[in-house]
């Protein structure tokens, strides 16, 4: 049983403490605290969970339980260019799944994962309100409409350099 050491930068620890303090270090506010932390860091690495655990005096196993239970929490950092494919009804019936498959194949990752070089990550979304353009793909802030599997290579090319 070795002592677990956590290495975080000072300002990161300070930020987490600040977030916890803004909820009065109340264990009941765990989900809100994790939300804020994820907003700030983009994801919830183990080290962030350890600091939250110490601040809220909630066992870190419980925190990990919460993080793995809710799908909106993630422990993997998003890629530089997060790719999201809409899986809403309109997009789905117009072949979004095939588009998603193509992204999987091209990037070599599954939904929820990030490429090794940290460039792309893959996720699926519910209707983004652009059904007229179905199937819809988002890369970062940019929207692509009427995407066919054949377009995937081209889209990814936009981000090469």
């Amino acid at each position, binding site marked *: *049983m*070795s*002592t*677990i*050491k*956590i*290495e*975080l*930068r*000072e300002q990161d*620890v300070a930020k987490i403490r600040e977030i916890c303090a803004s909820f009065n270090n109340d264990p009941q506010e765990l989900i809100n605290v994790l939300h804020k932390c994820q907003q700030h860091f983009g994801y919830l690495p*183990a080290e962030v*969970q*350890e*600091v939250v655990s*110490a601040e809220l005096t*909630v*066992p*870190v*196993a*419980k*925190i*990990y*339980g919460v993080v*793995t*239970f809710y799908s909106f929490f993630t422990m993997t950092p998003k890629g530089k260019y997060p790719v999201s494919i809409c899986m809403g009804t309109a997009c789905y019936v117009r072949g979004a799944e095939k588009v998603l498959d193509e992204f999987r194949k091209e990037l070599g990752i599954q939904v929820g994962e990030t490429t090794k070089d940290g460039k792309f990550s893959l996720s699926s979304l519910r209707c983004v309100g652009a059904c007229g353009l179905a199937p819809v793909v988002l890369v970062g802030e940019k929207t692509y409409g009427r995407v066919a599997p054949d377009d995937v290579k081209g889209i990814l090319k936009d981000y090469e350099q």
Partner: protein
Amino acid sequence: MMETVKLNIDNREVEVQKGTTILKAAKELGIEIPTLCYMHLHDLNIENKPGGCRICVAEVQGRRNLAPTCSTKCEEGMVVKTHTTRVLNARRTVMEFILSDHPKDCLICPKSGTCELQDMAHRLGIREIPGQEYAEVSTYRKDTSPSIIRELDKCIMCRRCETMCNDVQTVGALSAINRGFMATVAPAFEQNLEHSTCTYCGQCVAVCPTGALTEVNHVPQVLRALADPSKTVIVQTAPAVRAALGEEFGMPAGTLVTGKMAAALRSLGFDYVFDTDFAADLTIMEEGTELLDRLGRHLKGDSSARIPILTSCCPGWVNFFEHYFPDLKDVPSTAKSPQQMFGAIAKTYFADKIGVNRKDLVVVSIMPCLAKKYECQRDEFSVDNNPDVDFSISTRELATFIKQANIDLNNLQDEDFDAPLGESTGAGVIFGATGGVIEAACRTAYELYTGKKLERLDFTELRGMEGVREATLDFDGTPIRIGIAHGLGNARKLLDDVRSGTSTFHAIEVMACPGGCIGGGGQPLHHGNSDIIKARATAIYAEDRKKPLRKSHENPFIIKLYEEFLGKPNSEKAHHLLHTHYFDKKKKIIVKQ
């Protein structure tokens, strides 16, 4: 007056207190509705009620859905049917669903024969599991720690372990993670238990209905040592084992099998059959002397004397304060646990006596405890890589060992322990129950402190099952304030007071397991029946009353050990062999520059 409600279950009328569940009302009529996730250790105030498995359903007239009886309260005029076709089919479906992804290796599962899931399949007459062609059997890597094995592919998500680890022990090493098919129970980040804050108390193992959580089996190593002609193998048995071992052989809870156990161990081939109770008496000499020293200095106004003194004979408890209260690590007594005291004396004093090199002496302990497996592997308890205690096996492991050797425990003639490390007083015996260590310490401390003979040996005010107890004893005019906690959550309460400086106790006894060692993680499974634990406590106190000597300092072999070998309690030699030190295991947050 308590409000009551009348209802009808399986065509019989029953009147129960308002708020009673259908499950309990049925029980009053002698109707045992099957349960799987539900568990209630009544006397210890421990309840697991997730309402998740739905095995316990029944039909309630006027309701569309079947009701889970473990979490549905009785109402006036309710009409309940617990075994209609609809109910039986629902139970079967639930069971088939649970079994669909469960591994089918019952034949070689460590829980086989004592598994509640297996029993339920048997009870419900399950003969096939539909859809096996396409069902995916759950898989999870096996995690082996020094004490506990996790095989989470066998987990049915009853969450009893989570209740024990979080609510009862307040350790929080285990938590439910993921959802749906992937749901399971794990330490943070699915690390190995060894890297978590687990104390190895074993309470999760004690309640797991399946083979998902079991102890590390050391019987094969013991067997190998016994078969090796170059080894002298000696065994020590903890106080709580004799009050529970019989259960594994069909005897009623609370049957004492001290003499039969000694006979069985001799028959298994141990060269010397000794008793941890001897070392318990030794612990009292060391811990009691330390208590009197600190107390004496404290009463004289010496502020460097740390008060209260905490007992240190429970290794689960030691692990707990090393993780959670390392700032207080100078508060507990430095006395080793009886298991380790025994090992240290066996491999020095006794080895010399019989002229055997410590490397050729194998010390085996039989313990009600899983934390002892970890404890005997701690670096500070070995000399030149040779541990003071080589193997620690649980009461359950001993039972399987005896069965493997086709020894019929029921029909063995009683035999005695061997001398010199097998002799003990009643004070050593009561170590097995909550409150027993401090009672034993007080019997000796009283006489040493006052110089008078103690008239009333039974400190009944220290006994019982409440989680936190306190009593003030009269040491001939000096009031001594005693605190007792069993279960780590209860210990935490007393420790918080010590940390904040508000504790008013002179001495506190802590046992990690609810009930003390008799409720240990290595004992025969209680399957949620706390009467079993109470019966064991009764047996322990009965054994104490039968003993001709009931005060540790009167044990003639202890007196001799000091005369021949150790000198005085807390002497330099005693310190070297019988005392230890503690480590800070708290997680550190290190900031990168």
